[in-house]
């Protein structure tokens, strides 16, 4: 049979479960207490109204485990008890420090089974298990929703989904960048004609050179030293284009102008 303590009609303490509840929010919100904090509170409530010395608390809380702790550990445990009670909704400071004597609980307490203090509609959920619940080291109110989020954010599935989304996101970016294909990447280097370093879409170097010279005769193609000319032959049936650039067209700050030589096609040719 589980014993519970109702403190000032506000907070329900279940020492066996090491849990504190605000009675109004039971069982949605609970505070899990560390073992020593739980034991301190229990001892204070068991001796409600009595002054418990530090020596008594050391022996009752830590001594039975053969542990020796500093005074500071006791003060921290008492501080944690106070914070936990406050977090659970208890406005009054029911744990008093008695100078040079110890600590005293001045709470109004009732003991009984948890169900004795709860409205009929509330049922202790089976799934709430202190062994599997995160422990509130410092009076963090843990509710089930937080636990679910915590579990979700830690789950491998969430990381897998995040990885998948990242890959999709990168694929979208790659798709955007992939539109920017290098237009002249597969052009054949024809060699220098005048000052122009000529590249041609046509694989035949000699044909490209003669074509370039013929076009230059129609309208002069003038290059400064270092300029390049990119000739696109017969892809568009209306003519040939030549890009004259001061540097590689895909490099920053390149300047190019386009020459477009119209050609008439005759069916008999």
């Amino acid at each position, binding site marked *: 049979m589980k014993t519970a303590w109702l403190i000032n009609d506000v907070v329900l303490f279940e020492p066996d479960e090491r849990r504190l509840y605000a009675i109004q929010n039971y069982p949605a919100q609970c505070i899990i207490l560390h073992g020593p904090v739980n034991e301190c509170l229990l001892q204070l409530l068991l001796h409600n109204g009595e002054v418990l010395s530090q020596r008594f608390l050391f022996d009752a809380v*830590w001594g039975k485990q053969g542990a020796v702790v500093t005074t500071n550990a006791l003060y921290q445990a008492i501080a944690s008890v106070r914070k936990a009670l406050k977090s659970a909704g208890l406005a009054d400071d029911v744990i008093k420090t008695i100078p040079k004597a110890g600590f005293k609980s001045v709470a109004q307490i009732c003991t009984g089974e948890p169900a004795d203090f709860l409205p009929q509609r509330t049922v202790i959920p089976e799934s709430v298990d202190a062994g599997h619940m995160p422990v509130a080291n410092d009076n963090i109110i843990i509710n089930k929703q937080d636990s679910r989020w915590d579990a979700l954010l830690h789950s491998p599935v969430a990381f897998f989904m995040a990885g998948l989304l990242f890959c999709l996101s990168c694929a979208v970016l790659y798709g*955007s960048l992939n539109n920017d294909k290098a*237009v002249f990447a597969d052009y054949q280097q024809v060699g220098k004609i005048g000052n122009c370093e000529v590249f041609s879409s046509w694989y035949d170097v000699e044909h490209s050179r003669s074509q370039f010279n013929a076009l230059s005769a129609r309208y002069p193609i003038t290059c400064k030293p270092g300029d390049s000319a990119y000739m696109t032959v017969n892809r568009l049936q209306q003519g040939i284009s030549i890009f004259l650039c001061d540097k590689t067209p895909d490099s920053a700050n390149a300047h190019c102008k*386009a020459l477009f030589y119209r050609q008439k096609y005759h069916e008999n040719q």
Partner: protein
Amino acid sequence: MRIVRPFFIGRNTMKTNKLFLLWGAILIAIATPLLCAGYLSYQRNHFTCDAHAIIVDEDAIMDIITNYSFDGGSGSYESSGKYIKGTQPALTVSNNVSFNYWYENGKMIMVSNDTNELPKRTEPLLDQMPDFYHLRDRGISIDIVRANAASYYFVYGHTPVFYCTKSRND
């Protein structure tokens, strides 16, 4: 003898913060490529550029400076230059076309709303230009390919025809 350490105040809070930081970093990692893609997409739809082109016919040339402006589905084309036929004096030519555009299979489809081509009289070379530049409600499909951060190739029928460089204020 065993020393029991006091409780680690705020350890869970730190864990939670680390978890949120981790997921924050993951969300940023997911969002960054999408934002970059969005930025690229925005740039492809909002820019103004200039190109210099010389069109050479059998007995005439047209030397023009063109300006294309794209602004989220609507745009404009402006050109001005000179038309020289044989030994005749150079003729000043210009054109303004407003158009709507959209992307289809990676290519830009532009449909003219209005044109204002000068001179009005028909010259053989001008007449050979695609209808889009003369008449309203005529379409043209152009592949606009980024050359570098500041320039685009305008590819018409697998042939690059303009090298359009972004205006300085773009």
